[in-house]
């Protein structure tokens, strides 16, 4: 839908789960194997993508984190109050698990180039390599941010979410989110401006595959 200003605007967001989702939740709570499988396969791509965005691509422990998210989600499904969309609620679980992971191990596995190549695509191999390198550099910078700052930065700068929405996801007041975001941006761009890996050419010492 095009508005007179030429931009697509969403005037109201659907709040709360749909009837279909409510039915799925009810069946999951009963321990229905088919429903659990349905829940898993329905949300797995989204959850995997979210984890990848927060923790960075090419990590060896993605499957572990994914498993933790679903175990946590299934466990707390009984506490789901239905005041948010199921996907938003799951996103919250996802962010919390990722946050725990970041606190526990600041960087478990170094970014694996081969796995990274699967995730980042550009038209030519040369450009693809450059894109991979840039993504790697960005996550190297993000690794230097504290987990809390890192989460709000990714949610805002990369995913384009508003502070109010982020506050709901991370469970902190909006003002706190804004403060964290302010310091996260300041720190990130300071590090980015001093990062030679973000220059147009290949970083010194880097060996091509």
């Amino acid at each position, binding site marked *: 839908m095009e508005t007179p200003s030429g931009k697509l605007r969403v005037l109201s967001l659907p709040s709360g789960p749909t009837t279909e989702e409510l039915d799925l939740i009810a069946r999951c709570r009963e*321990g229905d*194997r088919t429903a659990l*499988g349905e829940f*898993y396969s329905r949300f797995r791509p989204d959850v995997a993508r979210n984890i990848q965005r927060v923790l960075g691509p090419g990590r060896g*422990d993605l499957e*572990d984190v994914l498993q933790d998210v679903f175990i946590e989600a299934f466990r707390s499904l009984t506490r789901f109050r239905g005041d948010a969309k199921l996907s938003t609620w799951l996103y919250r679980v996802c962010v919390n698990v990722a946050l725990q992971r970041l606190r526990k191990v600041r960087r*478990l596995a170094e970014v694996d180039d081969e*796995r990274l190549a699967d995730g980042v695509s550009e038209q030519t191999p040369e450009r693809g390599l450059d894109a991979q390198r840039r993504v790697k550099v960005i996550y190297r910078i993000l690794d230097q941010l504290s987990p809390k700052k890192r989460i709000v930065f990714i949610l805002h700068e990369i995913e384009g979410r508003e502070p109010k929405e982020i506050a709901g996801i991370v469970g902190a007041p909006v003002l706190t989110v804004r403060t964290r975001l302010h310091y996260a941006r300041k720190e990130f*761009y300071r590090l980015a401006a001093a990062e030679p890996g973000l220059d147009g050419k290949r970083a010194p010492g880097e060996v091509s595959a």
Partner: protein
Amino acid sequence: MSRCPKPVALARGDEAALEHADTCEDCQTALARVRMAEDTFGLIRDMPAPETSDSRAEATLRWTRPHLALASTRRLGFAFAGLALAGAAVTLFVVMRTHWSKKAVAPVVVEKVTPPTPIVVPQPTMKAVVTLLGGEVELSDRRPLGTETLLGEGDALKAARNGFVAAQWAEGSGFLLRGTAQTDAALTLSELKPRAQRLDLARGRVDVRVGGHSLVPVAAVATPGHLIRVRGTWFAVWASGLTTTVEVYEGTVEVSDRSGGTTTLLSAPSRGVFIASGHALPAKSRVTTLAARDAVAARAHSELNILPVAPADAARAFADQLFAGSGVLAVDVDGAAQVAIDGVELGTAPLGLRKDVGRHLVEVSRHGYLPLRRWVTIGPTPGSIREPLIKAPIEAPPSEPPALSAIEAVVKERRQHIRACYERSLKRDPQLAGTVTLQLKLDAHGRVANSSIDGSTLGNEDVSTCLRREAAGWVFADGRNATIVYPFVFRPQ
């Protein structure tokens, strides 16, 4: 020229900052990098969802159902408790009324209901194939043990010190039992069914890997003090009396006290030390996260020689499938040599192993000998490597020990840490005083390769251990291959 703006101002598009950047070379570079970072955000946003394995999904669902069932049982429990309370209130009311009215009431007869006998469906048992064997290992019934042996339910294995045996019971699932330098290991395959496996570890160490195949909902290791349940994972368990140590390398395991105490979930990479309650002592546990470097080393040490299996053929038993796709190799060289296959260290020679059919690189290494590298083709007929190792040329003779001043310089630099070793024990024993003589053997680079206690009048093991640990990182630039003996005198100030 005005001061350079902060990079965040460039990212914000602050006009004054951009204007400044037009004339400042440093800011132009910063601006280009900031823009490049912002471009990369788009790439990250558009990354497709990564591929994930179905086996993990299976494992997650498998463990979720009982959990949810437990939650609903709890809810049901609360409901019943409520009803029971209401019933009790009504009964009390009736009894009181009867008592007051003094009227005779017919006695209530409660019929005894026998609970129905649960129906037990017998499950077929599985066999485990021995895939790696070294040192002294014996089977409970004195059957000969080799890489052709099939292990079944009820079999007990004993690995002597430094002995090891690995076996595989399903695709991606197996165990490695090993005796350490200090103790032997004993394990019983109490249960080996497609839907439940249980290994009872009396002592020693067992490494377990449970594959993602859907037929295995429960695998467990029981030690004298604890029960370790598995969630699609890779872990190691040591048992020593009522103390159990668990290291998790992949996935999650659940450790519970067998006396019915607490349950702890351990997620990789972590280590938990659990002491079960006993001898009137309460249960204790300590869980730590493994540092990335330690986790990598621990995983390398926990190599189970799991063999790939051809796509399952339901008509054939797993053991037959494994036998069909693999062959055996015996590596019999001089003792104490480390054997690695395809770059993975498997244990100390002489050893026998099973590997998938094809070409494999065997590397044998022993300190002071030239390494032996051989490509072998493993096929239906058993292969073997029996070659003497050749002594390496004699290394440079030890140099003179470094000058006393050089030693003292290194010691002085680490004085705080050495003092900390002593002060920790001093808190417990305020009279602690004496001399600990440390012997340090240096390698060809002047690094401490080996440290030992040459003598101690302190009589405190903690201080000695702490000192040796501390000395492990020292480097003496001009003391290649030398041996240093240095006394440390400790007395309270």
